[in-house]
């Protein structure tokens, strides 16, 4: 990890339906800096604006006030430059494309040649440990496998920033833990910056370098918790440092609840 800034969020407000009766202040006065190669989780009760914050970073929404800079340029420019890979809870694979064609979709849109595309999609399938599933249709795969394809697709064009919105939220506990290990391995191999939205305390503690705890109505940064578990493996889940980090996050979330 180096010290170069990947994301810089400065005094950002996000208001939906501004100046209307159903006006909602989703985020208020958010300041956050994320360094290149960092793995940062956003956690908080529902309605705290964590998904909104992710979409502001990804230029899927525009801030009402303040600025979002990604790799020293506007979020919009970063999106146009294809710096983003996105993964959602809904795997969002296209039924009509075979698995390899799904992974190749962003490459197609970015104008890669057919040969380069198929080489790359095979590399990605190997990376997510589905080397033989390229010719399947997404619906023929289990939920966990679909989510792995979705990650492969997001990483296929080597985006500098991976934005993940509860990507493992729909998976069963065991699959979820396997996927976390996979994600960490991929993160180490690729050196991508990751912003990860979750509402699972152990998940955020296990994966992140830093956990940003948000409080709702309006969404604000309550606290930022540093986590240092070194290189993680399955045994890290029994580690006292892991429990300590989870406890710290839990206490921050309790404090958020009491605020209300």
């Amino acid at each position, binding site marked *: 990890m180096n010290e170069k800034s990947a994301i810089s969020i400065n005094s950002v407000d996000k208001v939906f339906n501004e100046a209307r009766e159903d006006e909602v202040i989703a985020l208020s006065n958010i300041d956050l800096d994320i360094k290149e190669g960092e793995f940062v989780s956003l956690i908080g009760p529902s309605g705290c604006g964590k998904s909104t914050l992710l979409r502001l970073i990804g230029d899927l929404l525009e801030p009402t006030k303040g600025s979002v800079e990604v790799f020293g340029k506007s979020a919009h420019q970063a*999106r146009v430059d294809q710096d983003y890979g996105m993964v959602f809870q809904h795997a969002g694979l*296209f039924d*009509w494309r075979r698995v390899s064609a799904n992974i190749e*979709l962003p490459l197609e*849109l970015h104008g890669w040649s057919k040969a380069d595309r198929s080489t790359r999609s095979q590399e990605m399938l190997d990376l997510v440990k589905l080397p033989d599933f390229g010719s399947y249709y997404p*619906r023929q795969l289990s939920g966990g496998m679909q989510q792995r394809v979705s990650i492969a697709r997001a990483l296929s064009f080597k985006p500098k920033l991976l934005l993940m919105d509860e990507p493992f939220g729909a998976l069963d506990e065991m699959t979820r833990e396997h996927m976390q290990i996979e994600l960490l391995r991929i993160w180490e191999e690729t050196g991508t910056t990751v912003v990860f939205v979750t509402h699972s305390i152990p998940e955020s503690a296990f994966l992140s370098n830093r956990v940003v705890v948000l409080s709702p109505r309006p969404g604000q940064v309550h606290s930022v918790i540093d986590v240092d578990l070194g290189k993680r493996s399955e045994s890290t889940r029994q580690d006292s440092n892991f429990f300590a980090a989870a406890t710290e996050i839990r206490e921050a979330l309790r404090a958020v609840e009491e605020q209300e």
Partner: protein
Amino acid sequence: MNIVKLKSRVSIIWPPLVIGIGILALWEGAVVLFEIQEFLLPKPSSIWTELQNNWEILRHASWETGKMALGGLAIGIVAGVTFAFFATLFRFLNEGLTPLAVAVNATPIVALAPIFNAWFGVTGSVSNQLVVATVVFFPVFINTAKGLTEVHVNEIELMRSYAAGDWTILKEVRIPNALPFFANALRVVAPLSVIAAIVAEYFGGPQDRVGYVITSNAGLARYDVAWAAIAVASAFGLSLFVGALLIERVSTPWKSAVQLEETTKK
């Protein structure tokens, strides 16, 4: 895989075939056994005889009616799909048009046939084709518009994160997403077009059409000939339905791949 495919096809075909033949046999037996009079319910065998005796008339009539059905089908599909695209482009149009289309679709459109005859003339083919087209239009429009607009929000966000514009999203996401919806509509409207064409012919028009053959023979108490005409029309409707199924198979291969897997798993 191919053997599995073949097996599953055979196992799909034989039960309705056996039951269909069984019903025909029961029908034949019941008419003979209970001495039902031919004008009330002719035997399948006498319908078959009349079918052969009147083959030339029936063949010609189903050809003429078929032209009405297919012509109307084509007009209705083109119009339905075109409107669906417009409804997708303009949200206001979609919000206004779709509920209206659903309401109109629930009304008996074929009842308009005599009015269409008055507008467009009873002798030409325009009136009847327009009746068919109107019947076809609404299901095609409603379903296609649904397929074009009901795309998961994450899928749109994903495309936008790749810096894809509206046109690319339409081409890569909305249109393929709408294909199964369209295929569904096609399966409904293909046989419906034959029904609409025949019912429209009940209200007048040229005499070499299936609708006229049915009404005129029923009027003369030649019910076996009327039944033969109905049988020909059914066969025609069925073949259009099978055609729609084939189009569905070819245009949405991902659906049949998944379905096949599900049937073989059972």
